């Protein structure tokens, strides 16, 4: 290891980074094990085609997971992202159908996402309502609202713009799906922000100890408020990708999506208590679960077994992590 890299290692989030790095190493090992296992057992698993497919499939949870992890790190939760996926698809598809413009459609979706983020953030940070309750409420409201508006019908993407279709079918260099590229770029940007921008560190501080953060001159409420907006906007991006993948605005889009993302995020070592975890960990958590379900499908295992195994792995992984943490403190 070069001197420079040890330097940044130590000077940066330092011990935390090192600790998390170890956690990430364990997750990476886990991921490799999963991939290795299915490469031997499941047909066609270890192929460029399949692996890039999985990356495309994972792009949704990866993108939304960034926001989920950031909100977790700030010490709050957001379980409205699943319903949000369905909500923002409406302006997206409707505007595109009306105007034949991808830019306008995406702008409309982002505006909707922004409004939802502002509502969640305001109610949590400024009105002081527990974020689980707020987002549980907005989850119901949005889902019900989508059903009301659509009359429980999906709205087809009649515009079928090439640029929008490319989001689903297109691949960079004909290999990596664009959706995965978007997720990876966003991941890199936000990982950088969380580790190397003052704002990112403020989020960690606010989640780690809000009172201390306030004394250090941070506007705790504004930081949390902003986190909800980030989360909603990222979920909006995930919603756009999903709408492209299913070529329509689906009223049922994202049902139970929040559970998947929360599970992957916690699996990735992001603590519900706030202040602990990294986006890299979250990404590894998402990939582990995604490759797992892909592999289990590849083995031809029925849904019920997939559910049972995923459930067991989530409990086991978190229990293992907890045991490790306690041993670290105890030793």
């Amino acid at each position: 290891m070069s001197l420079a890299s040890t330097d940044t290692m130590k000077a940066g989030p330092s011990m935390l980074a090192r600790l998390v790095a170890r956690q990430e190493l364990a997750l990476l090992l886990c991921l490799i094990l999963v991939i290795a296992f299915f490469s031997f057992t499941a047909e066609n698993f270890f192929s460029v085609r399949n692996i890039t497919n999985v990356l495309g499939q994972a792009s949704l949870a990866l993108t939304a997971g960034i926001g989920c992890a950031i909100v977790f790190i700030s010490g709050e939760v957001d379980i409205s992202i699943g319903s949000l996926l369905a909500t923002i698809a409406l302006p997206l598809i409707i505007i595109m159908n009306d105007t034949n413009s991808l830019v306008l459609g995406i702008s409309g979706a982002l505006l909707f996402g922004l409004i939802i983020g502002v509502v969640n953030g305001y109610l949590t940070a400024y009105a002081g309502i527990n974020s689980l309750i707020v987002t549980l409420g907005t989850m119901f409201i949005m889902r019900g609202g989508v059903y009301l508006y659509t009359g429980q019908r999906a709205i087809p993407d009649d515009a079928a713009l090439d640029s929008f279709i490319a989001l689903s079918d297109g691949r960079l260099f004909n290999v990596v799906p664009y959706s995965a590229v978007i997720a990876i770029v966003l991941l890199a940007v936000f990982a950088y922000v969380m580790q190397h921008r003052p704002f990112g560190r403020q989020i960690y501080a606010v989640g780690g100890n809000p009172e201390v953060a306030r004394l250090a001159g941070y506007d705790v409420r504004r930081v949390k408020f902003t986190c909800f907006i980030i989360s909603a906007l990222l979920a909006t991006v995930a919603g756009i990708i999903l709408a492209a993948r299913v070529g329509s605005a689906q009223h049922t889009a994202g049902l139970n999506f929040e559970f998947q993302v929360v599970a992957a995020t916690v699996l990735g070592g992001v603590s519900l208590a706030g202040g602990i975890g990294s986006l890299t960990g979250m990404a590894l958590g998402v990939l582990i679960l995604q490759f797992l379900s892909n592999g289990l499908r590849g083995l031809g295992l029925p849904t019920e077994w997939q559910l049972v195994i995923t459930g067991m792995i989530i409990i086991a992984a978190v229990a293992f992590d907890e045991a490790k943490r306690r041993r670290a403190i105890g030793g």
Partner: protein
Amino acid sequence: MNWSKSMLFASAAVLALSAAAAHAENMPKRIGYVTNYATHEWYQNVIKGMQSRAKELGIELEVQDANLDVAKEVSAAEDFMAKGVDVLIITPVNEEGVVPLLRQAKSNNVPVVLEGNPVKGMTTMVAICDYDTGYTAGVEAGKYAKEKLEGKAKVMNVGLPLLSATVLRSQGFMDGLKTIIPDAVMVHDLDGGGNPDRALEVSSAALAKNADINIIYGINDSSSLGGLQAWKAAGKSQDGLLTVGTGGEGLAFINAMQNEPSYRIEAAMFPEKEGYTAIDAAVKLFNGEEVPEHIVSPTAPMNGDDWKKFYDYDGTTRKIKWDAVNALQPPEKCMKTSADLKK
């Protein structure tokens, strides 16, 4: 644009060539089926029908479950294509969500058979006629009401607005009913979620509001049974009540027809047959044969003990009597489809 067009031409050419080279008895090695909701009895029996037909023809059938999630459906189909199946059969979670899938399948040269719901740009679909199914059951219900219910028909529809298929069933039922009893009314149009506990819950409230309901129609067996259970829970006698179910999905309706005095009519849809037909359609597509856009799978209203004509039931499992079901003549064309619904 040009590029994709030329790809289309190329793939069409390849298809045409392979079709020309193939003999009619060519069998696909492997068929992948992405179902909507594998844990539901309806799809369980669709899968059973597919499996028995695939076994007959020596085809390997793999099944994946979207578990009511379109995103998962797309993923599962992608997995199948990566695996290299010869034909895909898909039950769309809903009509609009699989458009990109059909696009992808086309660019991968994998023929697709849809089961249940039509999709823009599809080649072929195997499905029952939902409206007709409801309609014929409605006619039977009208006859029953005229004879046993003093010609009155106040209907509680335990519906599911989520899907156009189920909306069509309810419409068909009312229209069929009105051919016999013109002043039949739908007193309540409920969203029972297609599952029994929700159906039970919403029906309780509706029954409490309107005591004059005398016909319960359910868009599937869970819905009709949920409605009936709400009736029973309210402490009412089943005299003067008619319950009509749809689907004949599993064992529940047989049980109900044996034990519940009001459960007299079942609009059977023979899921096994639908699966059977889907495999046949897949083989035809694989061989490049002409197939109609809508291959109709037969349905039939069953009164009282009619179900014994089509099923063997030993108390724990049912077995379809293929001869009887295969003898049913499906209509060429549906009276109404989801396309009419959108108008």
